[in-house]
Structure formats: C-alpha cells, structure tokens
C-alpha cells in the first residue's frame, strides 16, 4: 500500500518535471528566435537603411524600394480580394439555402487554405507568365497573393455575419426592407469588423510570403517604382532570400537581419491591428 503510493508520487514528480522542462525548452527556443531577430536586426537598422535604395547587390545601401514594393503588392492584393471575399461571404449568409452548395464552398476555401504556397507560385507562372504572357509582373503577384488570402478574409467575414443576432434581420424585414436593403442596412455595417480583421490577418501572412511571388513578380536589383502593371518590383522577403544565399559575406548577412526585423515588425503591425479590430468586434457583439 505504502509502496504503491510512493511510486505514484514519484510518477507525479516526474510528470511535473517533464512538463516544466518542455515549457522551459519551448520558452528558450522562442526567446532565442525573437531575441536573435531583434538584436541582430537593430544592429543593422538606421534611417539611411530604411530610406535609401539598395546598392552593390544589397550589400550596402538600404531597403527603401523593398519596403515600398512589399507594401504596394499587399495593398493591391487586399483591394482585389475585398470584393470577392465580401460577395462570397454574403452569398453564404443571405442567398444560399442549399447545404450541398454551402459544403462545396466551404471545402473549396479550406482546400485553398491548405495548398502549399509554392504551388501558387507555379500556378501563377503557368497561367499568367506563360499562357497569358504577362512576363514578370508585380500585379500578377498581387493577384496570386489575393487568391492566397481569400479563405482567411472570407471565413472571417462569414463568422462576423453569422454572429449577427437573428432578431436584427427579422426586425428589418418587419419594417418592410427587402433582401438587398437588409444587406446594406444591417448585415454590412454589423459585420464590417470581421471583414477588416480577416483582411489584416491575410495581409500579415501575405507580406511575409516568398515562395508564391519569387518566380512571377520580383526582381532582385535595380528596381525602383514600377511604371506599369507588368513590371517587377523588389520585396522584403525576396531580398532576404538573395542576401541569405550570400551568407558568407558578413555585410550581406547584416542587411538580411535588418530587412528581417523590418519584415517582422510589419507582420506584427498587421496582426496587432487585426487583434484591435477583433476585440472591437467582440465588444460590439456583446452590446
């Protein structure tokens, strides 16, 4: 009796120790990751680095046009995906009454979410660059990024729309509004936060992606502001990729860390904004 108690007690101590050790290991890894990005990155950051064009194949100079290119591409992607995500979510909520159509749409979106990012790049290369013959174009990159963030934006909008209390619709219908009027007066204003949150989460993901755009939208050096839709830009992720491949050169590595820190800050900025909108959404829903 006493012995059994001791064994169980020892097991308990071992289990607790194992849990602590795992958490500590995870914590150490995470601390190391964030720490190395911040410490190494801050060493490279300066005003010149942020506002000068890259020189000498990225080894010196700054990353101004890379930041510009990244922001431009994701902004265009957001503008492309916005009407599509809104329409798809509205269709699910307001017009679709058949469960099998709903199922098909949901599964398509989940499949889209599951597709590895590099295959989006290959898809873009085949359809746009080769078949439609656009050449390397930043706008094609934006279209591909828009397809990538479509599931996130749509599902978030859909969730916000289905969280609207049914009584709102019933009241609006009782007042004699027809379907499009209810959508305009009730559904859209009440679910606006969901759309913004979804878009921002999507943008946070899109701005860090390298694989989908590296074949179809970017060039490494000598790129400034594109004059048309079918010109390449330079972006932060592809810039880091090129610099990481010259990792034996300390100067290139230093600039890669600087660009990484800027990229992580941009991603965190978009995610932070998304959190802000999500909390507003939740508090608005409780009223």
């Amino acid at each position, binding site marked *: 009796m006493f012995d059994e108690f001791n064994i169980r007690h020892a097991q*308990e101590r071992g*289990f*607790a120790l*194992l*849990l602590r*050790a*795992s*958490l500590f*290991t*995870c914590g150490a890894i*995470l601390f190391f*990751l964030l720490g*190395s*990005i911040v410490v*190494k990155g801050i060493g490279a950051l300066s005003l010149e680095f942020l506002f000068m064009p890259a020189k000498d194949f990225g080894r010196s100079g700054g990353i101004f046009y890379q930041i510009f290119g990244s922001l431009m591409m994701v902004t265009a992607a957001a503008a492309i995906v916005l*009407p599509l995500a809104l*329409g*798809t979510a*509205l*269709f*699910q909520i307001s*017009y679709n009454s058949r469960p099998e159509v709903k199922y098909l749409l949901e599964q*398509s979106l989940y499949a*889209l*979410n*599951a*597709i*590895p*990012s*590099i*295959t*989006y790049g*290959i*898809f873009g290369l*085949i*359809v746009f660059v*080769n078949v439609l013959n656009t050449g390397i174009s930043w706008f094609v990159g934006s279209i591909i990024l828009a397809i990538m963030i479509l599931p996130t934006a*749509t599902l978030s909008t859909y969730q916000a729309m289905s969280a609207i209390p049914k009584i709102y619709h019933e009241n609006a219908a009782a007042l004699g509004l*027809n*379907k499009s009027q209810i*959508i305009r007066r009730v559904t859209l204003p009440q679910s606006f936060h969901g759309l913004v949150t979804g878009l921002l989460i999507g943008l*946070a993901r899109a701005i*860090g992606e*390298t*694989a989908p755009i590296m*074949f179809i939208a970017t060039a490494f050096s000598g790129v400034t502001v594109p004059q048309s839709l079918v010109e390449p830009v330079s972006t932060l*992720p592809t810039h*880091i*990729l090129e610099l*990481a*491949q010259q*990792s034996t050169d300390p100067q290139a*590595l230093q600039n890669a*860390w600087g660009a*990484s820190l800027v*990229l*992580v800050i941009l*991603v*965190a900025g978009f*995610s932070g904004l998304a959190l802000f909108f999500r909390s507003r959404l939740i508090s608005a829903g409780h009223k």
Partner: protein
Amino acid sequence: MNIANRQTYRRTTNFSGTKIYCLASAAISVTIVCTILVTLLVQSGPVLFTENAGLIGTKWNPSDGQFGILPMLFGSIFVMLIAVTIAFPLGLMAAVYIAETRSSKLRRALKSVLEILAGIPSIVYGLIGVAYLNIWIADLFDLQSGRIILTAGILLGIMILPTFLTLTEDAISAVPVKFRENAKSLGLYRHEVFFSIILPKAKSGIAGAGLLALGRALGETMAVMLVIGSLDRLPSPLFNPLSSGQTITSKLGREVTESAFGSPHFSALVFMGLLLVLITILLTIVSRLMFKQEDRHV
C-alpha cells in the same frame, strides 16, 4: 411608371444587383480552386505521357530524360518525420503545462507570444537556419557543411511548434473543468488525471492539430530550401539524417525557373507540385474531421 411603382417593382424582382454580385463572387471562389487543380493536372501531362521518364525511380537527370521523383518524395517525408519527432512531444507537454496550470495570465501572455511566432515569415526562419543552425550542426557532428536533412528537420520542427502548441492547448482547454474536478476529488494525481481523463477526451483535437502541422511541414519551402543542401539522391544508408537531401518544395523552388515551359522537365516538376497539393488537401480534410469529432465529444 411613377416612383412608387418602380419601388414596388424593385422590391419584388428576384434578380437584384446584390444577388448577382454575390452569386458571381461565390462562383469565382469555387472556380479558382478548380482552375488551380486542373492547371496543375494538365501541365503534368507531358511527363506522364513521356515514355521511359522513370517517374517512379531514384534518378533525376533532366538532360538524360530521367525524372525519378522518389528522392524528393523520400526527402519530404524524412524531413517531416524529424520535424514531427521534435515538435510533437515538446509541444504536447508544454501545452499540457499551459492548459493545466490554469493561470489565465500566463496563458494569455504565452498565447500572444505564440501568435507572434506563428506569424514570423518562413524566410526569416531560413535566415536563422543559415546564420546559426547549420553552423552549430556542422560543429556538433564535425561535418564539412551543416546543410543536411537533420538541419532542415530541426528548423521545420521549430517552425511548426507554435501552431501545434496553440491548437493542442485549445483542444486540452476545451475539456470541461468538471472532469478534472471529479477526477481530482477521487484522489488522482495530476499525471493520472491527464492520461486517463484529459487525453482520451482531447485526443481527436490533438490529432487534428498534428495533421494540420504535418500539412504545414510538407508545404514549407523557403526555410527548407536554404538549409537542406539540394542533393537529388536518396541518402545512403537510407535513413541517414546527416546527408544532404532534397524535398519536393526545395526542388520546386530551385528548379522551376531553370526549366523550359512545356518541357517534360517542367512538367515533372509540376507533377510533384500536384502530388504535394493532393497530400496536403487530404491531410486538411482528415484534420477537419478530427476537429468535428472533438466538438461532438465535448
């Protein structure tokens, strides 16, 4: 027609502009998925109809017309297994700690850190792999170069850890408190509560999290491409993590721009991409089924 009449007309009409717009958006969303799959399938055609392409072989040599995809397929699975061996036990145990200590402050703080980490772009992980990990591994095993399968596996394990950890923690936290209270009042120790009460309840949720993480690990490109060494041969002996290798994604990242559009070479690459897409979609479907089962359980 006066204004009042027109209003009535617009109210009763079935095909309003809004409806057409919504229908069109939904149709486009579904079409995109189909287009991607069909495009990949059509472009895989040339190599599937090329004789003696040796697709299910171990030799990749485009100039000889040999496109054996086995080394890449094996590399992908091997790297994924290493990543999973690292991430799953570590993530599960840490998730248990976070969920069972029930300190909501610690939980919220950790969750937000994990969300930041899950958002770090993969290229930044690649940079960390190039700058630190591959040098440490080379020193540790006394190798010429640290760009080997093991390095890619470890890096990938670190990458999927945050995703797996938060999802697992969600699954464990979803088990109602009353189960724990009852078990504890019966005099069970914490490990007994976990293994005999919580784990059976949360297992489909944990499995779902695992499958989702597997899918992410298989599809990851940038970090793997930078540290795996890009060698298109099966390692010898087969399960030697210290040799360089190649995964499907790293192969695609390196070679797609070097191959001519429409050639068997390009088509073999697209075929590998198609395989990858099918595997990851399958994993997602199964993991969604798991999460649904979890909802029913709890």
